[in-house]
């Protein structure tokens, strides 16, 4: 298997995730797109771990770290979304214009 195939697959998933973050306005959907981005990076890391001349375990370890951090991120993110919903009865990101941006 070629390394470039995996890198290209991961790039495509990353770009789909970026599109989701930019085009969605439901906060839960944006969090899902962020998961797509994090997973795309994981494929990259693991693929680089089995390529190249030297044995390098870092790819696997970093992929595990990213999985753990993604879990933490989703937990806090959904708690914040819940708080926003409780205060404003909507998770529409366009409604969050308190800063007049």
């Amino acid at each position, binding site marked *: 298997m070629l*390394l470039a195939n995996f890198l290209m697959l991961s790039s495509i998933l990353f770009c*789909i995730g970026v599109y989701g973050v930019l*085009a969605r306005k439901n906060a839960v959907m944006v969090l899902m797109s962020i998961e797509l981005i994090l997973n795309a990076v994981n494929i990259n890391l693991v*693929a680089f*771990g*089995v*390529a190249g001349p030297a044995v390098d375990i870092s790819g696997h370890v970093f992929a595990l770290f990213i999985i*753990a951090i993604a879990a933490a991120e989703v937990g806090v993110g959904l708690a914040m979304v819940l708080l926003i919903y409780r205060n404003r009865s909507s998770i529409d990101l366009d409604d969050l214009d308190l800063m007049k941006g």
Partner: protein
Amino acid sequence: MDAVWGDNTAQNIAFYIIAAVMIVAALRVVTTKNVVHAALYLVAVLVGIAGQFILLGAEFIAATQLLVYVGAIVVLFLFGIMLTRAQLGKDRDVDGSNAQKWSGGFVALILLVVMGYAIYGTDGMTDVELVEERVQTISQVSDSIFSTYIVPFEAVSVLLLAALIGAIVLARRD
């Protein structure tokens, strides 16, 4: 001489099939109007990624992916959808304006072109074969985590604890 995986047609075919399913499901995640369907398509993408990890010889990460993502994070998403009382069925209100969609698509496309050029335009990048001898066992991963990466590992444990407490503080009703 290292054995290369490039000769193995079955693995290449498996890669392309799983990749096609993943890309279609990922596109559905970001385009479907139904929030619950988006979460279920996300499951398809995550399982596909676990399949790619198995193809890459990273069984432990594939198992972790299934346990943490499909088992925990997607359930958390479904809880989030339920608690924010998203409309069941089609929800017209999940997509941004057309300007947002077009600019998002434009940015994503430009990014894809740049990354594709970086991958296929770099000398020698397209003929790097993945090498079966590089596949690492679980014991090597654990040795590495508990020796070289012990400080980041402890930091991640503290981070998880902080996230747990933070989520409870944020979400509890007083």
